[in-house]
């Protein structure tokens, strides 16, 4: 700090004239009373602190990079709103619309005044919002995300477990119903359904490294339908649906899922960068 800046700093809190001149040497002495750390000391400090930083999460870094631009922040906000909309119970939307419609009907068809109806409907909408809108609270989604900053692999495994688990459960119910109706053994029916499912999931995950997930799923499903059509036309459909082929399909699908999960952490930064708004 040079003398001019010291003077202006003293002036900031009302020092002026002779008193300022008297105080200037003291504050100058204070400003000059210092030592610089050596470059080595700085290097040692940096090394000591860097050891204390958590290994960077690629997801967090990608989110941070995305937040640098206003377009990225806007896109993130839109994503956040969409995700929050997804966790809100649909009863909230339907119920709110129904309350609105009934209120309008009540105003149109009865002798009730609109003020009275609004007084009735407003708190009812608030009740619906609280009762049905905060499904995420019951799901503990926020608490989970705060308490357990997930890695890419954790997220993938969690979502796969959720989606595959649900699909397997649905498939098993279907298989039980089909096996009873067709009087066929349950394992044969179940594996017939499970094999293509695993292959489809594995292939979709693999393709999603190169293209958006929805497009990957579409391509895989279209390819599967084409394969079935070709097999039917060429008469090899019985081979395609034989137990050994279906088992091989299931194994191939399981392997594809495992490879995709192993590769995911390394590929995710590029995928996220591709998803960033231009």
């Amino acid at each position, binding site marked *: *700090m040079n003398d001019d*800046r*010291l003077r202006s*700093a*003293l002036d*900031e*809190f*009302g*020092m002026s004239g002779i008193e300022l001149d*008297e*105080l200037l*040497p*003291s*504050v100058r*002495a*204070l*400003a*000059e*009373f*210092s*030592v*610089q*750390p050596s470059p080595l*000391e*700085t290097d040692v*400090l*940096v090394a*000591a*602190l*860097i050891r*204390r*930083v*958590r*290994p*960077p*999460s690629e997801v*967090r*870094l990608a*989110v*941070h990079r995305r*937040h*640098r631009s206003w377009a990225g922040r806007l896109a993130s906000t839109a994503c956040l709103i969409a995700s929050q909309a997804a966790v809100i119970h649909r009863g909230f939307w339907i119920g709110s619309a129904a309350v609105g419609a009934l209120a309008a009907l009540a105003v149109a068809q009865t002798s009730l005044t609109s003020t009275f109806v609004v007084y009735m409907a407003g708190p009812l909408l608030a009740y619906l919002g609280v009762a049905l809108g905060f499904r995420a609270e019951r799901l503990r989604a926020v608490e989970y995300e705060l308490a357990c900053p997930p890695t890419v692999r954790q997220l993938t495994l969690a979502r796969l477990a959720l989606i595959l688990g649900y699909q397997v459960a649905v498939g098993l119910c279907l298989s039980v119903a089909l096996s009873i109706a067709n009087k066929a053994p349950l394992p044969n029916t179940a594996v017939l359904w499970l094999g293509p499912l695993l292959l489809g999931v594995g292939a979709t995950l693999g393709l999603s490294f190169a293209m958006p997930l929805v497009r990957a799923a579409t391509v895989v499903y279209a390819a599967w339908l084409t394969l079935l059509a070709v097999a039917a036309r060429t008469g090899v459909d019985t081979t395609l649906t034989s137990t050994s082929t279906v088992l091989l399909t299931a194994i191939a699908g399981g392997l594809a899922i495992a490879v995709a999960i192993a590769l995911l952490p390394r590929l995710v930064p590029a995928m996220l960068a591709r998803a960033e708004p231009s």
Partner: protein
Amino acid sequence: MVRTDEQLMAAVAAGDRGCLEELVRRHHAPMFGFFYRSLAGDRATAADLVQETFIRLLRTASFEADRPFRPWLYAIAANLVRDHLRSAGRRPAEFGEQLLAAIDPGPGPEAIALGADTARQVGVAIASLPEEYRVTLVMRFGAELSLAEIAAALEIPIGTVKSRLSVGTRRLRDALEGIR
């Protein structure tokens, strides 16, 4: 484009080690100067407290990364100075320290008063100031924080900052004149 401290801190909170290095290199010397002055020239403790400041900063990074950076950093630093001065004031001098004081070949208070080097005189004058004046003066004239930044760091009104600076500069002048 040079990134602001707040942008770097947000990146550090996300785990970016490169940004931590940039932040530390940017603030190491000013922080070191702050502690060196506040502790009246105790270089070793200054180095320890600089490290402790950054460690505490990292601990709270994920919760407060969007705070204005300099007031946040110096709030931590001021708390450390306060804790250190209070613990030093409470701690009785150990036997080794008493012995060293007895045989210390360096200049004693009288020698300092009679005209040892200027830096030592300033150190003695700073040490004579109460902690709240000392920290406020060092923040303004050493670290060059604005009045608003000091107010935010110490969580006091700007009027109190001005009053501490006004009283503190006079006390510093009196202390220096008394030594010389």
